[in-house]
């Protein structure tokens, strides 16, 4: 009897940190944000329950244009990160020799932990009017006047791909690493060519890693703030910037909370659709990477 009491007590003690964390830092704050988003400001310091904050979003094209722009550019970044990152991951996991494999993976891991801010700062130094590339092109005589490579959408996309691509490569490498080389050889042995082996064997096997990478990359991109602001300038029109303006500049917390809710709902919906389409689960992908 004492033994079972002890086990129950220890279960409660183990469960407490988890419950406090999820309840106080995830569940309650999101409920609070939802409640705040549903408060409508009708007069100074007078509030009413209603969908006014969401209606404002619907009536103002600039808001939902920003959200759609953020979403579609994030999808583009995710796709590019997968296209560029997959061959790299495959090289590290399957082609590189055992010794260079570890070194290459390490080289990938180290920039992962360098702040977005520093990475964006580096791009600014390279791309701005007085930056390295502009100066180098001038010195080479290829252009006559300094050229501004910052503050356009292409730069924002490149910068975002750069920021998130390692989060794509790392789960892909771990998944591909667990794949038995004999499976690929068997694929060739049974008469497959490079393309069919890739499509029928490698990609299906790597699917959990691909989905995990895509989810993380999409979420990071849609939720990113620094890279679009610094590389895209004031008019980068990123939805997180809109949220920030509502909160900090206009001090409209109700509106900001509503926008935050919209961003969360939008990104969650995209992830959910992605999981359904690829027939994967959150536990089987992100949790394993």
């Amino acid at each position, binding site marked *: 009897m004492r033994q079972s009491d002890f086990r129950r007590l220890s*279960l409660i003690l*183990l*469960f407490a*940190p*988890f419950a406090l*964390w*999820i309840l106080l*830092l*995830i569940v309650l*704050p*999101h409920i*609070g*944000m939802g409640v*705040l988003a549903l408060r409508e400001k009708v007069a100074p310091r007078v509030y009413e329950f209603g969908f006014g904050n969401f209606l404002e979003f619907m009536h103002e094209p600039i808001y939902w244009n920003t959200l759609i722009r953020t979403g579609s550019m994030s999808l583009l970044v995710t796709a590019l990160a997968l296209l560029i990152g997959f*061959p*790299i991951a495959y090289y590290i996991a399957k*082609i590189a020799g055992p010794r260079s494999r570890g070194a*290459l993976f390490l*080289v990938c*891991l*180290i*920039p992962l*932990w*360098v*702040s*977005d*801010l*520093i*990475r964006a*700062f*580096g791009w*600014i*130094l*390279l791309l701005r009017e*007085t*930056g*390295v590339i502009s*100066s180098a092109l001038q010195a080479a005589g290829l252009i006559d006047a300094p050229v501004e490579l910052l503050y356009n959408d292409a730069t924002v996309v490149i910068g975002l791909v*750069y920021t998130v691509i390692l989060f794509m490569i790392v789960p892909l490498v771990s998944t591909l690493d667990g794949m038995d080389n004999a499976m690929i050889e068997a694929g060739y042995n049974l008469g497959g060519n490079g393309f069919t082996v890739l499509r029928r064997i490698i990609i299906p096997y790597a699917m959990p890693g691909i989905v995990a990478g895509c989810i*993380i990359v999409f*979420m990071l991109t*849609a*939720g*990113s*703030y*620094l890279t679009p602001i*610094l590389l895209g300038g004031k008019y980068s029109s990123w939805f*997180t910037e809109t*949220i*920030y303006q509502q*909160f900090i500049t206009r001090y409209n*917390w109700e509106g900001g*909370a509503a926008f*935050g809710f919209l*961003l969360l709902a939008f*990104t969650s919906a995209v992830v959910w659709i992605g999981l359904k389409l690829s027939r994967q689960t*959150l*536990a089987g992908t*992100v*949790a394993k990477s």
Partner: protein
Amino acid sequence: MLQRKQTWGFLLGYQAYVLAFFVFLAAPLVAAAAFAFNDSLFPALPWRGFTLDWFFNDSEPKLGMFHDRRLLRGLYYSFVIATGVALLSVFVGTCNAFLFVRREFPAKNFLYIVMVVPLVIPGVILGISILVLASSIANGLEEGYGIDLGFLRPGIFLVVLGQFSFIATITSLVITARLRKFDATMEEAALNLGASRLRVLATITLPYLRPAMIAAGIVAFLVSFENFNTTLFLVGSETPLTITMFDRMAKAGSTPVLNAISFFLIVGSGLLALVSVVVQRDRSGG
């Protein structure tokens, strides 16, 4: 013969692509770090010679980072926050690992997914939702009871909680993965040799988990150190380094002192990341 030539060419092209990728990966970091040593007031070409002024010079206009009081204070706050977050999330991550690997309870699989979810919530949302809840509790207490709970206002405490809210998922996943590989008969063997439950935990299970706990702690420290999105909404007057740097970049324009601190952070986080990888690799066979 022809086919062999083709594969050879293909491999060469492939390697060139991989090389190009790593150049792409390194370029901005090299740029950010290199200008720290340029003897110029602006982080731009042309190269005016090597200097360490941006680290050690003690007077304007070339005030080095180790004499810049605001940057140093930012570094200090970042350090305090990251240490707090790392300790807290390793503790909770270890508890979660035991909870999800060793125990059975209702809705376990569902709660495991709940544990993963914070990682896929945009950091901005975590920041504002915690800000909203903390502020409404603080406002409610102040208006209703006249109690002012300062720690619920933006500041270090909220920053730690905000970062912890998603970093705990990372540490939980790392430590859980390690505990799953643990051979539970090792605990029975220790028990059989006469050890008490507490002693088994202290001498067998925790030493086995230690590499994962250290690695998870380092990762938590680094993620906390570089975090911006969540921190932005929760920060008070004690601004951590990333926020200080961002302000400086936006307002004063960039000076090479930012390159100096970038160099410092790149090398520091690189070394720590290296340590975390080595610690985990060393014991993974055991």
